[in-house]
């Protein structure tokens, strides 16, 4: 493999290095605020390294409610359940819809694909109250199930588009081979095609998980029991009407972001990777 001259390579590393530092800086700021005793943003500029504390972190993690239940633990589990289920449901829906859009021609095909785009255009903040009313009619308010479905549908447009695009890259021969081998459409879908779109599934899964995990306005609106809250709701409680507890907020931010970061780290290969094309070519 021919390599560009050393100077160019050094420049490339330098550019990546600078970009990474910029990408990391706010993260660093959060960490410093989370472990500083002096509250607030001046800690970022003049960190007091000699006087660090884990109190903020401990406070955030060890919240209990009046009945002595470990709220953080419950909320963490809620968050995991809600985000996980929303991802699962969303992915299942999106994959089957993406498959249909990729493999079939049917009346409403174009309309459907455009429709997904259209829904992204109406400002989300204005849909909350109507959404709440609908969900209320369906008996979905104040239930984890409701939140799961709401999150799943919000991520659907992106997921369907991504998956449809990926299904398109898989030759139709594969489907047909499976059909001739006697597999039903459903079986062809989940046993033959789904494994082949794994990279796209990983991307869309990350996307839906991220959306569901980080969201707080809907969660705070839909859920009305503290032990059912998701973590971002609790996190946002540290920003109040009269000032905010930046130390706790920063510590909470770390705790809330950490699982997603880990998920990204483990799945990032799939984010861009494709399955070795092998026999598909």
């Amino acid at each position, binding site marked *: 493999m021919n390599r560009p001259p050393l100077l160019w390579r050094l420049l490339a590393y330098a550019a990546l290095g600078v970009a990474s530092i910029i990408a990391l800086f706010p993260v660093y700021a959060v960490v410093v605020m989370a472990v500083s005793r002096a509250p607030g943003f001046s800690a970022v500029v003049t960190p007091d390294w000699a006087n660090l504390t884990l109190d903020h972190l401990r406070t955030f993690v060890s919240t209990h409610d009046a009945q002595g239940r470990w709220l953080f633990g419950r909320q963490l589990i809620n968050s995991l359940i809600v985000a996980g289920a929303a991802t699962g449901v969303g992915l299942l829906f999106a994959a089957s819809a993406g498959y249909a859009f990729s493999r079939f021609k049917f009346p409403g095909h174009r309309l459907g694909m455009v429709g997904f785009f259209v829904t992204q255009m109406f400002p989300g903040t204005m849909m909350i109250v109507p959404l709440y009313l609908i969900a209320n009619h369906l008996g979905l308010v104040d239930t984890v199930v409701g939140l799961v479905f709401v999150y799943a549908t919000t991520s659907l447009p992106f997921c369907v588009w991504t998956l449809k695009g990926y299904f398109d890259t898989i030759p139709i*021969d594969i489907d*047909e*081979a499976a*059909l001739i*081998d006697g597999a039903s459409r459903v*079986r062809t879908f989940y046993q*033959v095609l789904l*494994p*082949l779109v794994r990279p796209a599934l990983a991307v869309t899964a990350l996307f839906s998980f991220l959306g569901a995990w980080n969201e707080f306005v809907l969660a705070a609106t839909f859920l009305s029991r503290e032990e059912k809250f998701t973590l971002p709701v609790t996190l946002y409680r540290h920003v109040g009407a009269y000032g905010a507890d930046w130390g706790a907020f920063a510590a909470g931010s770390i705790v809330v972001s950490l699982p997603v970061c880990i998920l990204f780290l483990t799945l990032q290969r799939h984010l861009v990777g494709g*399955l070795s094309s092998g026999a598909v070519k």
Partner: protein
Amino acid sequence: MATITLDKIAKRYGDTVVLNELSLTINDGEFVVLVGPSGCGKTTLLRMIAGLLEPSQGSVRIDGNDVTQTAPGDRDIAMVFQSYALYPHMSVRENIAFPLKVRRRDPAFIQARVNEVAQQLGLDPLLDRKPAALSGGQRQRVAMGRAIVREPKAFLFDEPLSNLDAALRGRMRGEIAALHRRLKATMVYVTHDQHEAMTLADRLVLLNKGTIEQMGAPLTVYQRPRTRFVAEFLGSPPMNFLAATRNGAELFGNGFKLTPAADAAAQPLPEKVWVGVRPEALCLSPRTHAVEAEIDWVERTGSDGFLYARVGDAPLVARLDASQTHPLEPGSRITLGFDELSLFDAESGRALGAQS
């Protein structure tokens, strides 16, 4: 085993007619090869037999049962794709086992069957590999394995060997022939390769623009093409065509004159005809008929020698023994003799009876 009957099937996309009321019966155990120029509808036909496409009209019957609305998987037909369409995420073993698994066969049976097929095809050492780790020929064999493992009533092949090199293609051709002899299954085989068509087919079906141009035993079709199109399509290099005008019982062309055999006279010849001569019918020694030609160039392939020449303006190819071509030099004029010729109506392209 199965008899496949296509009854006046047609396929249209909007105004485009791909297949036009085509009827064809493929007998039990028969090896039918479909040939025809690109885009003539071979794949379409095959996919309709498989059930992957629904005909716009007409019906498909297998053993007398109308299967036009039957799902592909329920037709008990196997298909080998040009791309092989192996499942990339499954090992060779899983690929071959898939049709049986789908049918919920007993795992022990599946294992035995897969091993048996793998052995037949020489795939045993590769069973745990993924398709990506196989060579082209090996993939082809896996595709075959997946087709034969469930012993279907019929096999469909869509240019299964076109991605292989010549030697491998030759070997696989032999294997397919052997397979057919062994299984005695009905087979429909699409190919562009003359060799495959001629050697494998019990019956050759030549498609053109969505209709059957001619069908029959390969040699018959080769020797008695019913149209100029068929004559031109089969044979490599293709048949030579020389324009001629009839004058009484004699045909005059640019640089030649010939008198067709008397039996042709039973049928009055039209004014203008094409005289078709197969390259291998031509020789350097005097025969019944003769043409004057100027040599353009000569190709020698070891056993054969191909002589490219011109009769008047018309190009002409002759296939000779390589040894015979040595004295020949481009630019020189020679006389080529031949016994067999075909005559075609210049207007309709229809054959005017075999000549000798």
